[in-house]
């Protein structure tokens, strides 16, 4: 039976070995410092930029192969289901057309009323459609292949048709990285639109599948099943983007706290196409 090579042969003296390991750790520390300094100004550090640039051709190739295999398998196995799904989607598109007309009419009405009240028009937002180029669930991050050149800025929301998905954190020329909504580092203004008036608060990631919604006013009403959307009290995130549904309420009047657990509307593992709301 073949043995592995003997890596101890010509081994360096212990002090040189320890010095070498310390050197490696120091290099790691310096790289981390460079990264932190770049992140303070919402930029990607040069090392991460180089790594992403070098690895992107392989990443695109691998994504294409995986997607091709997946399409072949699903097309082969689910052809009948796909036909039925296609018919259902066409019906939904027709219904959405009517809904869109109604929304456009109502928006026009809002604009007219604002003009009558001498209020300035609401600044418009546009959607930049792109796809997820890298997905790192263990650190609650994604990469997208659009950046500064395409008008992406730190703090902009990334959405899917189901709702809010992530918030842009660092922006490079043609790529960006975003924190998923489930990240504990993300904090988003939110409100419960199932209540009138809506209960407001802020929302942050709790774990990989749940969000924590803390209400500003502990006496506000909230119940299981309520719909949570963005409140729009920020520079980049507009009002009304769907976040999820309340699945538990934690009322603690002694501490003056009311919190709810929210199930995100977006199934994170299944997302491929996304929109950056600019």
């Amino acid at each position: 039976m073949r043995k592995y090579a003997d890596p101890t042969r010509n081994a360096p003296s212990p002090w040189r070995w320890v010095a070498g390991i310390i050197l490696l750790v120091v290099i790691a520390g310096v790289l981390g410092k460079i990264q932190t300094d770049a992140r303070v100004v919402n930029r990607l550090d040069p090392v991460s930029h180089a790594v992403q640039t070098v690895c992107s051709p392989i990443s695109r190739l691998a994504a294409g192969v995986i997607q091709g295999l997946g399409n072949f398998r699903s097309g082969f196995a689910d052809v009948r289901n796909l036909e039925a799904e296609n018919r259902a989607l066409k019906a939904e598109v027709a219904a959405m057309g009517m809904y869109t007309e109604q929304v456009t009419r109502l928006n026009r009405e809002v604009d007219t009323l604002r003009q009558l009240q001498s209020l300035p028009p609401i600044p418009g937002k546009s959607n930049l459609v792109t796809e997820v180029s890298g997905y790192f669930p263990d650190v609650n991050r994604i990469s997208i292949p659009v950046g500064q050149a395409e008008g992406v800025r730190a703090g902009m929301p990334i959405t899917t048709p189901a709702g809010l998905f992530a918030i842009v954190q660092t922006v490079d020329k043609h790529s960006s990285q975003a924190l998923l909504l489930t990240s504990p580092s993300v904090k988003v203004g939110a409100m419960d639109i199932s209540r009138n008036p809506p209960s407001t608060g802020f929302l942050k990631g709790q774990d990989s599948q749940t969000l924590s919604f803390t209400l500003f006013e502990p006496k506000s009403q909230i119940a299981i099943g309520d719909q949570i959307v963005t409140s729009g009290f920020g520079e980049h995130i507009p009002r009304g983007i769907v976040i999820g549904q309340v699945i538990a309420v934690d009322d603690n009047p002694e501490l003056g706290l009311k919190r709810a657990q929210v199930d995100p509307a977006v199934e994170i593992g299944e997302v491929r196409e996304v929109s950056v709301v600019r």
Partner: protein
Amino acid sequence: MRKDESPVLRLILVAGVLLWLAGGCQQSAAVPVSLGSFAPNYLLLVMAVLAPYMSTFGSATVGLFAGIVQGGLAGANLTAYSVSRIFSGLAVGKLHQAELAQSPFVAALSAAVTVVVAQAVLLFLAPTVNVGAFVLATMGTAIYNGVLAVPLDWAIGKVLRNSAHDR
């Protein structure tokens, strides 16, 4: 070029190419092939299969680069990822100092140890809120990498056999 430099250069070249391929795959082909919390970590896999052909310090150096690639791709803390992979490289390097006979079991064990040590150090350097889910994901990755290590170890053995015998 001296004749005895050839195996080392070949090893560096193979390590570089494998880390490059693993980085690209880690970015886009790790989540789609996951089975629940069982997802592969291609960079740790590369570290594990290269360890038998390297010194302990060499394994730690590969660990540093694996950490830089993984942290850089994810935009995650470069120091935490690099240091955790350096220590993982040291651990798997020490494991192979025992002159183990090549077998699928050793390859799988080596891959699992690499994952467990790397993630344990990472948990210490960059604590997470949900430790239970992290531990579960680590176990899943250790098993997944253990399975993938068997054919990859065989293939790497074919490529590096000559250089390994020269050492």
